[in-house]
């Protein structure tokens, strides 16, 4: 995953409505109308959110002109999650070792 991809995924996830749409899609495919319903939004507004999600590869849409059901694509979420987790592990491990090292530094200073 490159930086641009990570950025577009984070951007897509930034909005609470878009996260709600993803959560809804995790239960199965849905149409734009079905996705708009709980949010009291116009179809046009929901379509805009769907375009962002689609651009980030988080959803895909069917080909049928009228129906075009949306479905979830989980891979980008996994990538972001893994990447952040690796990052935390790196600094967690570094801080553990630094904690030990500081104690030896302090002892040497006192001598």
């Amino acid at each position: 995953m490159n930086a641009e991809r990570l950025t577009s995924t984070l951007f897509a996830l930034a909005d609470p409505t878009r996260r709600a749409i993803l959560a809804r899609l995790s239960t199965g495919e849905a149409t734009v109308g079905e996705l708009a319903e709980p949010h009291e939004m116009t179809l046009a507004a929901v379509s805009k959110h769907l375009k962002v999600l689609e651009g980030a590869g988080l959803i895909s849409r069917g080909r049928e002109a009228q129906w075009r059901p949306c479905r979830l694509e989980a891979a980008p979420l996994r990538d972001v999650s893994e990447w952040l987790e690796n990052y935390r592990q790196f600094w967690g491990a570094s801080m553990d070792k630094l904690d030990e090292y500081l104690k030896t530094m302090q002892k040497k200073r006192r001598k």
Partner: protein
Amino acid sequence: MKPIIDSTSTEEPVVIMTRIFDVPREVVWEALTTPEHVAQWFGGHGFSSPVCEMDLRPGGAWRHVMRAPDGSEFPVNSVFVEVVAPQRLVWKSQRRVSATETAEVTHTTTLEDLGGKTRWKLVARFADYADRDTSVKMGFAQMVGQGVERLGDFLEKRRSSP
């Protein structure tokens, strides 16, 4: 002590970790900004640092090569942005995200004097969102709060359950 992950941040996509060290602030600062010390802890147990060179001033380079337990080496190239001894250090790193790709991470470290102890706070911002408008930043704040990971985990469980 385990790092504390603060998920209530209100700015941009960040990872925040804090740790309290049982030594005075000057010692932590020295350990953070002196290459021979940094090489001793960077990456944690099992990792070593065959290269660590720091030009400790705004715009100065921090050239680092990390060696993993399996012998593979990873360059970590950074540039210092702010250097305020003994309390604040900001640097930008190019961080490898795959075999061929890197992402930019801005690290802001603050050291708080707790009287003989020191609280280290590390804030990492991923990529550079400076060019994006305010509404986008507000959106990011929401994302950080609710958690990419929690959503990811949730979706993961959904997928794996029949």
